């Protein structure tokens, strides 16, 4: 079997807010083309880890390597260049309320490419069509549902054909059908574009449906309690805590 290319490498990462250490010496790797799940109970530091991966929280210690470049020590210019290759879907979609969906999706294209206005409009229509929002170009975020906001946020995250897309709790606040549609979309994007996807979630149905690799963060030990394909982890759980998490507390103990 050929060795997989490492896209993201987290090395001995410690995240702390003042004196409060949230996670300590966490290390893991995300391979190119993976749908990597960061799971864990509430307060385990999933969202903080995502914020560190996207450069919003400086780690107290350790390094994050993206495509072989040390993201934590990179110059602001290099960081910008790396972030252009990353898309992020925030929990609420984080669409700019004063802009239409088309303007939201066009923003990164206008910022980082020298494409003509016509091509940008065509790309915007394509990205919105890819997430099932064809024809919604002129709608404002306040005019669409929560699930549609997330999909529009995803269209914006995909605007620059990113190599990595981060998702923060994509299923949060969605009905089961919208949640399933978004999961399918994540798989479609991963398979058709070869995008590496990192998902922060604690939704078990999503974890098993989309995840190809994962880590389980534990608030108590401030570290990783399990890693691997979520389906495999369910079959062979390395500890009771992870088994409890993966079975909604029906087996094992927290």
């Amino acid at each position, binding site marked *: 079997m050929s060795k997989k290319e490492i896209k993201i490498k987290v090395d001995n990462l410690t995240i702390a807010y003042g004196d409060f250490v949230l996670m300590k010496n966490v290390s893991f790797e995300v391979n190119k083309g993976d749908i990597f799940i960061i799971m864990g109970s509430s307060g385990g530091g999933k969202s903080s880890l995502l914020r560190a991966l996207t450069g919003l929280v400086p780690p107290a210690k350790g390094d994050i390597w993206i495509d072989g470049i040390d993201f934590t020590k990179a110059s602001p210019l290099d960081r910008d260049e790396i972030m252009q290759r990353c898309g992020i879907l925030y929990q609420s979609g984080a669409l700019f309320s004063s802009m239409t969906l088309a303007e939201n999706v066009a923003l990164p294209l206008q910022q980082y490419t020298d494409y003509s206005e016509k091509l940008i409009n*065509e790309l915007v229509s394509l990205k919105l069509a890819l997430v099932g929002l064809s024809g919604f170009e002129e*709608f404002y975020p306040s005019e669409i549902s929560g699930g549609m906001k997330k999909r529009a946020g995803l269209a914006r995250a995909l605007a620059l054909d990113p190599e990595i897309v981060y998702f923060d709790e994509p299923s949060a606040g969605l009905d089961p059908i919208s949640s399933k549609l978004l999961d399918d979309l994540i798989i479609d994007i991963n398979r058709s574009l070869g995008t590496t996807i990192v998902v922060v979630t604690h939704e078990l149905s999503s974890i098993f449906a989309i995840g190809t690799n994962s880590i389980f963060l534990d608030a108590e030990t401030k570290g990783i309690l399990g890693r691997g394909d979520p389906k495999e982890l369910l079959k062979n759980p390395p500890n009771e805590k992870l088994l409890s998490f993966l079975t909604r507390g029906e087996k094992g103990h927290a």
Partner: protein
Amino acid sequence: MNLAYKTAGQILTVDLNGNFSGYDDEAEKDRLFLAAEKAKAIRVTGNGLEKWDSTLVVILYGLAKIARQENKDFDYSSLPDNLQKLVHLALEVDRKPTRDEKKSYPWLENLGAWGLSVYQSLSRALGFIRQSMVSLFRLLTGTAVMRKIDFLFALEDCSYKAVGIVSLVSFMVGLILAFVGAIQLKTFGAQIYVASLVTIGMTRIMGAIMVGIIMAGRTGASYAATIGTMQVNEEIDALKTMGVPINDFLVLPRLASLVIAMPFLTVLADFMGMLGGAFVGVFMLDISVQEYWKYSEAAINLTNFLVGLFHGLVFGVIIAMCGCYYGVNCGRNADSVGVATTQAVVSSIVIMIVATGIITLIFEVLGI
């Protein structure tokens, strides 16, 4: 990159060769789409395709849409699987969303709609004032749901934390007033009356107005933004559903603290304004400190001083009510908070000026 195509027997064949990253030849693309519209069937091959990105998918998506609209055969099965999947994904949902179109009405109907909206705004504002009065009554009878800590925080924010800016601005206003007055009074050799001018001006109205404007921008805006953000975060909905009167919980602490703080800030503004006037008098008009104080003391009039305090009190009520009203009636997005804040400040200042006019007229009639 090479976008090669040819039409043979009404079948358009597009052959994609090389690198299609960042393809932006719009003219060539337009020609291709024109040819696609004329053809009966479209076939895309990509044997020589190397690299590609969304700009290529845009071309395929455009061709697919033309084919779909005009019911043409569109064959892209020889393209790489992932590219096919993307085109398929883009075409999967094809619906035309609808929303209510804006209708245009005749002017009389527009006038009526405007009148109705003004009436609704007024009744909403009056309802808010009435509810606040009821809350005030509940506060006096000890039945209001107001947390002491909220009141103390609000009082802290609008009292000693505002001392610095009120002092600075009032000092400068006194200074300016003295300067402007001195230019005219000097021509009559009556520059000593600068002391009287500044003292009367600051104590009767200018002190209160300056404090009003500062506090509208500082505290009124903060009230609107804080309560507006609570509206966005559904905190106000939570209060309502818990049965907590929002006027008790949100308006009362802010109203009470401003009503208490404003007269004190007005006194401070009066004093600092007089100090600013004294600075000009002593250092620029060569008036001795004793002399300046003597004329200032003579000009201090209890009636003027109390009128100033009364203005301060009224302005406090106006600022608190405007800030809270626009906060509570804020929309549910980030923009709305900005709009609510602007409206709160602008309305506070306009209402304060109008109120000053009305109070002055009433006092004039009463001979105060």
